[in-house]
């Protein structure tokens, strides 16, 4: 195991996280900030552990909203990105509408969605997907439009079919921007879910719980809920990071896989 690499990848984030917590603690202590304005980090964490039986069902519901919304948004984003890259006329026609879709305040969308879809999971999933699909589409479109032209020419010269060229050259070429979009979308997914929960919920939700804590001036409860929401966002980001790691072996390997070298992965 490369310990220097592990240290570089793990130690850095731990130090920065510790610094954030340290600064937070210092502001509360040295600034004599009252507990009803902002809690100390440990008190906020205790607000999670001591109310875990209430918070876990709410958190798992929010996780469900983000998973469904993230998957739906990613699929829609990829479909839009590919179609727009392949049909430039469609791209020119649809792009302004996509930009417009992101300029609409989500809060304004929430109520009509509830009126149409009710208080089920569906309006929340739609809102999360609405937020997620755009960075995926834009990044994938940019990635596909900026694949090395020489490689495409080479594939054509070698007689590769359009489908083969797409999967062997264009997809790997666009995968890094695609994952950039997915990482942005994954991080924002929880924001979308919380906005959706605030817009309309039947029964309890994490956002409603947080609002109730704010109403009771329970800053520890508010910050604790915020930590949970942040943890969900970070988890999805890390998951995407892991998926990117698995999907881009050439970043870690300068030599082609054995199968490739033995000629199994020919262009035709």
């Amino acid at each position, binding site marked *: 195991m490369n310990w220097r690499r592990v240290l570089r990848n793990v130690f850095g984030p731990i130090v920065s996280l510790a610094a954030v917590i340290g600064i937070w603690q210092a502001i509360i202590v040295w600034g004599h900030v*009252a*507990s*009803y*304005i902002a809690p100390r980090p440990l008190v906020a964490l205790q607000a999670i552990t001591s109310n875990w039986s209430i918070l876990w069902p709410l958190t798992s519901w929010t996780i469900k909203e983000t998973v469904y919304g993230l998957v739906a948004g990613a699929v829609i984003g990829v479909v839009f990105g590919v179609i727009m890259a392949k049909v430039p006329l469609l791209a020119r026609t649809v792009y302004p509408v996509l930009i417009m879709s992101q300029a609409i305040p989500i*809060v304004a969308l*929430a*109520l009509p969605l*509830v*009126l149409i879809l*009710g*208080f089920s999971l569906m309006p929340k999933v739609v809102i999360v997907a609405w937020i997620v699909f755009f960075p995926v589409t834009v990044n994938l479109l940019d990635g596909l439009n900026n694949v090395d032209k020489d490689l495409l020419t080479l594939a054509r010269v070698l007689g590769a079919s359009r489908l083969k060229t797409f999967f062997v050259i264009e997809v790997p070429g666009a995968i890094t921007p695609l994952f950039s979009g997915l990482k942005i979308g994954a991080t924002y997914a929880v924001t979308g879910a919380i906005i959706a929960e*605030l*817009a*309309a*919920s*039947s*029964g309890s*939700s994490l956002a*409603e719980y947080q*609002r*109730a804590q*704010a*109403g*009771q*001036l*329970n800053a520890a409860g508010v910050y604790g809920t915020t930590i949970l929401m942040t943890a969900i966002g970070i988890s999805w980001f890390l998951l995407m990071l892991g998926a990117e790691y698995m999907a881009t072996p050439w970043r870690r390997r300068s030599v082609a896989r054995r199968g490739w070298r033995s000629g199994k992965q020919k262009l035709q």
Partner: protein
Amino acid sequence: MKHLVLRSALVSAVIASSGLVAVGLSANAQAAGTATGPTGSLTMSAPLTTVKFVYDFPGPDMELIPIVVGQDQGFYAAAGLKVNTLFPASTSSTSAMLATGAGNVGFITTSDMADAVAAKVPLESIANYSMTNNWTIFAKPGSKLTAADLKGKKIFSWGDTWTQTMLGFVLKHAGLSASQVTIVTASNDTPLLMDGKIDFDTSTTNYAVPAIQGADNGAKPVMFTGAQIGVPNIPIWVYAVTKAYAAAHPATAKAFLAATLKATKWAIANPAAAVNDFVKMYPNSGYSKAYSTTGWNLTIPLLKNAAGKFFVQTDAQWATLDQGMIATKQLKSAPAPSTYYTNAFIPAQ
């Protein structure tokens, strides 16, 4: 023609300059202690004391009318006060703004006050705004639903502490548990009610009635209120300050309430003019004049108690509130009612 245009432009420029000078003089005069009295005449008085008034909602609405009238008709200036209205970022921020000194006098619900005291926020209620409870359960106009039909129904809640407390009373009265109804929270209630997405709405009459009437060509909603649904008749909103502010500025607190009382009485006697003042001061509030007029007319009967007194608080109102908040697990214990309030700053009536 050109000459006329030029002369017209010159005259306009002179008038505009004069206006600017007048505004500047006025501002200087105000800073120096010149105040406009309730009659509109300029009077020389002591320097004005600034009071930062924090509302309970992120934007203005008709319940702000007494404050607006106090500002616009000169009641505060005559009392030596310059009242600046601030709007919180959220409905739960007012108490925190008072506690941090961002505001001096706040407008909050009594349940917010109880939560603040429970959270050891050093607040003190100095007067009731409303004296009676107009929190109501609504069904859409023409609905056949009754107060006995709550079981299994979708009931809207704003998610605030007052609604939670009142719903606790309602469910207890109906012999239902929280799991036997579906509580729906959303950013807007009226469209959900009118569209049938919820069975019952919960709000106060002065906000919900004009909204529902506006959405349904003036049709009156079906309403269930008071003893009919087991809700106690206790005040909803109060004026609050920090204990430190009350101790350090007792004269200002008294002057504020005295001027607010005069403004409230004026707004009751002149409802149309009071609404005009509100519309003039907040033309972009988002509420129509019709909404504000209906809302204010529904607010007026709430402002006096059975003895015809404004502002006066009682131990009983706070004790009853505590019972409801303990029952809904919003409070763990009930402090002495006197912990919450003082009537010391209320003017003689």
